[in-house]
């Protein structure tokens, strides 16, 4: 499945006119027995599909998400263990197998319901509906900051609470005592009066015979014992001693290594390859031609990569070969003009009386911003190990959607999906990149040609040049201000719309708004990139808001406050960031301070950045980040994600640009697609507000706001407004006049 979004579910006919259609409902009931075969061994009781108990009272939580650094294995296990009152020191995690029984119904539920409460008698039927949809879609995705929000809320907590209830009932039956007199604690059921205690493991088999409630009572925050605390990540030890096993570390008997080169111009077909050029190389086994790429198989990856670089390869000409970066921007501008002329802009938000506001309020401002294409550059280059045998295709890799990958590979190889086995490993970074199955398909096609397992590794050059990119975009604004310096009209036009839908929407109370966009064919492969549309709209809207503040002659923080009067949640976050950053204190000369606020994936984040301009370049000293995720289930993990998202966004703001020339990517490795390094990393302070709203995401929401806070800070230091990223392309000059 290409896109997983709320809209994708809706288009499946699940939601029609806002109502849930129960056409394909089945009641799934407890599927523990169905899955026992592949997740449990004989010494374990599988209580429901998300949890099993071993004889020694060890509890294993089965998590349907990939661990790519965000700590999701630990946090989800905590959510289940807390509801279950499990002994945390004896809890383990196992990633769910890529079997369709593990299609993640909680995601469908999360996307569709968006925290709407359902009548409880419907829950079971609806879970069946959601399961049916997710099976059909091959949905087992990690992305969109969904794991804690949806899986945690709809699957883990419910499973933990339901299991606890049946364990307690089983104890009550055994002791012939009323269940109300019993207590659950540290993986035991206790009866205080008689001082009896029994481990969960001894109750598991009889508990399995009892029906688990689909709407068990969940704990209220004051009853949490694990949620809201920060136990150490379960994966940390293996990640400091070299034993953590990533896709690239897989080793199988008789395995050989493959390197690959795909057409630099996206989608060009292979024309010819002169195999003779490497025939004499010892240890090189085979050259395999794919439709748009060539691969070499050798005894070592090093040999394979030397060989592929020696191979003379030619690709067919393609109409895309003439496209360059400026043509793409030109095309966008033409789309704007045409849409505006024909009046067929796609309306995203339309409210108030736009035509009049620009007539009445004479103070007006227009601006245009640009952002370039961006690659993901996960630290672990793309790779996949594949073995075809006995009609089965086995795949080892790190994937953000193992089940979806199995489905894609099955389609390409034209074999049934249950003949494709995906063994998911740790992901050396995901950021959206590992939701595209391209490398898995390539590896499967190579494995089809040989009778041994093949490990295909992409060079970093291939990784940068064959990505699915965050698109380049242009965003144009026009706004009007009244006498009091309040914004009365807001018009915004940009290209494309993906997820999240609210990315270009502003939290500010502005009466007249027209936000619109145009779709056209994007000639460059597109992919989910950390925070997706918000990665640019955060920069666009918060830069323009800053420009308006200057135009209105107001302090950028106060100006935002005045427009957030009706949004208490936003206001609180903004105030906290400003307060912790000591917003109104003075700074040395050559220094500047900038602010931003953006909500994405359910979490509101405000940031204040302090910079110094040194010899025309920016030095980022400090970032103060305040966030309201509703509730942080693992506060330290949440803070780690804030830091991570900020640094990812800083890299993009300062350095990130993928340029297209003659239909191909110019950049190739870390020397020209640069990353922020230790010596450039600012001090980052993060503060969490728990507003008790429905849980928001952690992995993405801090990325959108860093670029505008940074460029706003540069403006306050220099008077230079950065309207196009990245910042490295500017020589920053100190302004003669003092600003603000």
């Amino acid at each position: 499945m290409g896109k997983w979004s709320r809209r994708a579910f809706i288009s499946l006919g699940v939601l029609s006119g806002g109502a849930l259609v129960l056409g394909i409902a089945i009641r799934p009931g407890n599927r523990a027995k169905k899955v026992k075969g592949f997740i449990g061994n004989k010494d374990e009781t599988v209580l429901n599909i998300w949890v099993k108990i071993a004889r020694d009272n060890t509890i294993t939580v089965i998590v349907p998400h990939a661990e790519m650094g965000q700590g999701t294995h630990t946090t989800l296990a905590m959510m289940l263990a807390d509801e279950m009152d499990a002994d945390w020191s004896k809890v383990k995690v196992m990633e769910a197998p890529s079997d369709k029984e593990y299609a993640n119904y909680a995601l469908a539920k999360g996307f569709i319901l968006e925290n709407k409460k359902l009548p409880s008698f419907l829950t079971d039927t609806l879970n069946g509906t959601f399961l049916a949809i997710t099976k059909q879609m091959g949905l087992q995705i990690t992305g969109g900051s969904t794991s804690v929000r949806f899986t945690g809320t709809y699957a883990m907590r419910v499973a933990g609470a339901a299991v606890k209830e049946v364990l307690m009932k089983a104890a009550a039956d055994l002791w012939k005592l009323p269940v109300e007199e019993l207590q659950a604690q540290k993986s035991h059921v206790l009866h205080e009066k008689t001082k009896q205690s029994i481990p969960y493991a001894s109750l598991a088999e009889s508990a399995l015979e009892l029906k688990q409630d689909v709407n068990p009572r969940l704990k209220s925050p004051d009853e949490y014992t694990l949620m809201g605390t920060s136990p150490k990540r379960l994966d940390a030890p293996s990640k400091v001693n070299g034993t953590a096993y990533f896709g690239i570390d897989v080793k199988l008997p008789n395995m050989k290594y493959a390197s690959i080169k795909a057409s630099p111009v996206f989608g060009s077909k292979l024309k010819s390859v002169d195999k003779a050029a490497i025939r004499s190389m010892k240890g090189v086994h085979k050259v395999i031609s794919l439709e748009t790429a060539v691969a070499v198989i050798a005894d070592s990856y090093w040999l394979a990569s030397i060989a592929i670089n020696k191979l003379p390869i030619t690709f067919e000409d393609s109409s895309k070969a003439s496209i360059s970066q400026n043509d793409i921007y030109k095309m966008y501008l033409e789309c704007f003009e045409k849409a505006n002329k024909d009046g067929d802009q796609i309306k995203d938000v339309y409210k108030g009386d736009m035509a009049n506001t620009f007539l009445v309020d004479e103070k007006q401002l227009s601006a245009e911003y640009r952002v370039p294409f961006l690659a993901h550059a996960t630290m672990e280059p793309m790779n996949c190990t594949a073995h075809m045998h006995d009609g089965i295709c086995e795949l080892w890799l790190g994937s953000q959607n193992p089940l979806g990958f199995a489905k894609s590979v099955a389609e390409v190889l034209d074999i049934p999906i249950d003949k494709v086995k995906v063994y998911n490993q740790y992901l050396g970074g995901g950021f959206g990149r590992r939701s595209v199955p391209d490398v898995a398909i390539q590896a499967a096609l190579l494995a089809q040609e040989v009778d041994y397992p093949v490990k295909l590794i992409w060079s970093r050059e291939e990784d940068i040049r064959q990505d699915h990119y965050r698109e380049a975009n242009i965003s144009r604004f026009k706004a009007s201000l009244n006498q009091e310096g309040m914004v009365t009209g807001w018009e915004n036009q940009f290209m494309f719309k993906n997820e999240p839908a609210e990315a270009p929407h502003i939290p500010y109370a502005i009466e007249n708004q027209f936000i619109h966009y145009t779709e056209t064919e994007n000639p460059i492969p597109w992919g989910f990139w950390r925070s997706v549309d918000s990665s640019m709209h955060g920069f666009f809207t918060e830069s323009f808001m800053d420009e308006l503040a200057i135009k209105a002659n107001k302090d950028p923080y106060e100006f935002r406050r005045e427009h957030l009067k009706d949004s208490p949640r936003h206001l609180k976050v903004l105030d906290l960031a400003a307060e912790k950053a000591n917003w109104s204190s003075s700074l040395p000369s050559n220094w500047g301070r900038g602010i931003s606020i953006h909500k994405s994936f359910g979490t509101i984040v405000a940031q204040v950045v302090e910079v110094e301009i040194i010899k025309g370049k920016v030095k980022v000293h400090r970032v103060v980040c305040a966030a309201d995720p509703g509730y942080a289930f693992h506060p330290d993990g949440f803070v780690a994600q804030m830091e991570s998202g900020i640094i990812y966004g800083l890299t993009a703001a300062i350095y990130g640009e993928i340029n297209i020339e003659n239909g191909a990517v110019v950049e190739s490795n870390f020397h020209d697609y640069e990353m922020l390094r230790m010596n450039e990393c600012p001090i980052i302070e993060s503060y969490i507000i728990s507003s008790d709203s429905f849980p928001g995401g952690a992995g993405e929401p801090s990325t959108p706001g860093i670029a505008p806070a940074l460029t706003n800070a540069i403006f306050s230091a220099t008077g230079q407004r950065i309207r196009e990223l990245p910042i490295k392309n500017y020589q920053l000059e100190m302004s003669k006049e003092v600003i603000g």
Partner: protein
Amino acid sequence: MNLSINKKNIEVDVDPYKPLLWVIRENCNLTGTKFGCGIGQCGACTIQLDGVAVRSCLTPAQAAEGKEITTIEGIALNEDHMHLLQESWIEEQVPQCGYCQSGQLMSAHALLSKNSHPSDADIDEAMSGNICRCGTYPRIRRGIKRAAELMILDTNAKSKSHGEME
């Protein structure tokens, strides 16, 4: 060719120009050392040759002959005890995806072995060759500082107990 890795002698039959990175991963089956860029830009492949941090993706196998190679698998004190640096990494909850961390730890380890009191500038200097795409830099910095403090305590404790014994 004879190599000494983590104080063990290993005989490998490889092209002398094969980069150590691939010799270590493919021929010696030690996969803690990672491939990130292949051109000396990212530090994921950092190991030590005679205690000096080097990029194994650019170091031909023959350059390691007669030298002691140390990889991430070789810095723990013994099977049950991690190095203080590794423990500090867990204490500060440094790793996210974890892919860069072997290289980070090998650079940090080399730094601490010649400088027990690194300043922020020393840390910048020693660690800026190691990219972390997950942005764990603030925690790496804290991890190094914590380890440095613990190591000083540790040496003090050891020299004190030595003193008492004499």
